[in-house]
């Protein structure tokens, strides 16, 4: 995907839950019901992608649900901005977590982030079926590929 050519999408005004808040919330949960209610609620915060942007080119292949991803680079900060959406509620919640991690960061930060460590800490993958876990990793791979493409010199070292 050519991140530079993507249109910046309109964002809703719902403030996204920050990564630290997500971490704290996960620590409190014992029952799977609480975890999933929270994940599904997080999904409600994800800006809905207009149908016109849900193009085949934006599809992340390898997920059982449909996932669309657009990225562009913020001219001022040089950070990568992501718009990601899905037709499945739980996936949207997982996308909210990925956005809390990756959105509005520099390419080098994105590539350097230890996402598997976070998944372990949240116990996220132990909750998910293998296909769902793989789907999540496929989105992460796409995000990292975008960041590497954007991060010129950093790309090869961060890999």
């Amino acid at each position: 995907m050519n991140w530079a050519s993507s249109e910046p999408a309109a964002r809703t005004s719902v403030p996204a839950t920050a990564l630290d808040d997500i971490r704290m919330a996960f620590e409190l949960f014992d029952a799977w019901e609480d975890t999933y209610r929270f994940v599904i609620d997080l999904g409600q915060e994800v800006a809905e992608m207009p149908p016109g942007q849900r193009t085949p080119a934006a599809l992340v292949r390898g997920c059982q649900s449909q996932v669309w991803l657009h990225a562009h680079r913020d001219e001022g900060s040089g950070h990568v901005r992501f718009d990601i959406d899905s037709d499945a509620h739980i996936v949207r919640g997982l996308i909210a977590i990925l956005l809390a991690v990756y959105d509005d960061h520099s390419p080098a930060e994105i590539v350097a982030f230890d996402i598997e460590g976070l998944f372990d800490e949240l116990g996220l993958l132990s909750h998910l079926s293998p296909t769902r876990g793989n789907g999540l990793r496929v989105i992460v791979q796409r995000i990292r590929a975008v960041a590497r493409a954007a991060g010129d010199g950093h790309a090869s070292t961060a890999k």
Partner: protein
Amino acid sequence: MTQARDIAALRHDFPLIANRPDLVYLDSAATTQKPQAVLDAIAEHYRTANANVHRAAHALSGAATEAFEAARSTVAQRIHAQSPNEIVWTKGTTEAINLVAASYAPTVLGPGDNVVITRMEHHSNIVPWQVACERTGAELKAVDVSMHGIDQDDLAGKVDERTRIVAVVHVSNVLGVVNDIPGIARLARKVDAAVVVDGAQAMAHLDVDVAALGCDFYAFSAHKMYGPTGIGALWGREHLLEQMPPWQTGGEMIEEVRIEHTSYAGLPFRFEAGTPNIAGAIGIAAAADYLGGLDGAALRTHETELVQLAESGLRQVEGLEIIGPDAAKGPVVSFAIEDAHPQDIGTLLDQQGIAVRTGHHCAMPLMEALGLPGTVRASFALYNSASDVERFVQAVRKAREFL
């Protein structure tokens, strides 16, 4: 013969089911669990009878060959084949269909001819025909379907005098629809087309009789009929198999090899290149014996009751639609819930210890025809109980509350 009242006890024949009271396994259409008798047969083969077949000059190999060929006879009898020569071992349904598409199809197809399939086929009964048509210049035609079954008018319209092959699923893995194979065979007979049946979902639930079905080829997998993975069979009419060229070559399938020329072995060995899945053959025969020892009618009653119980429970769930025929069907219940992605439902069911399958079920053209991104599919087998179904329906209700 097992009476209906005994079926509840059969659950104890299946170690995985018996050892996992926490799990409600409703994914038997993907693969069934295996009874102790099958596990024992395979272990016993390796412990006491393992040797390569059809080759060595020693007694152990002779005994292994005998057991291997006895397994072929058992499976032949299970489906009422005329002779064990009509049973070719394959890896499963997929390979059996590929064998017909690679060996038989090119002998009958050319430009202007056509192959008729339906839109409810599993990918394994679509892609081999696409490839065969590409190679031979024939046309692939797909008959329209609804969730209730094949569009009979469209079928009658698409089968024409240039149709050489009609390939159709016996029991749909998504809808549970049981297709009228004798009717399709009569239609095909009129234009001299061969009928290839994908029996993957039928073998565990119906008493398949290839003579009564009137088809020419029948493909199935052991692992969906309480047997092991990695083996299945193609049944074909002997006179058709006789005319077919080999498709894979090497050892076992030859009569005589010279560098200038090789002559091929007779049936069924001509289609079985290389060392076969010997333990698998022992396993599928044990599964056929296990099924043969049960009262088929009682099994069907049991499985039909589970389907009816599940459907009447699911119908109470708001926004839920059952995707399948009203008529009698195989033990499969597909459904969709308004505004809820099948994958989300599957995940929430998994959290509650209910194993189902979600998605397109390797039948993307069917999903397209139905206008659905996928379904949630619960599939039942003889070891499932009414209490499994109750837990399942309860779990679907709970998932619904989340979404």
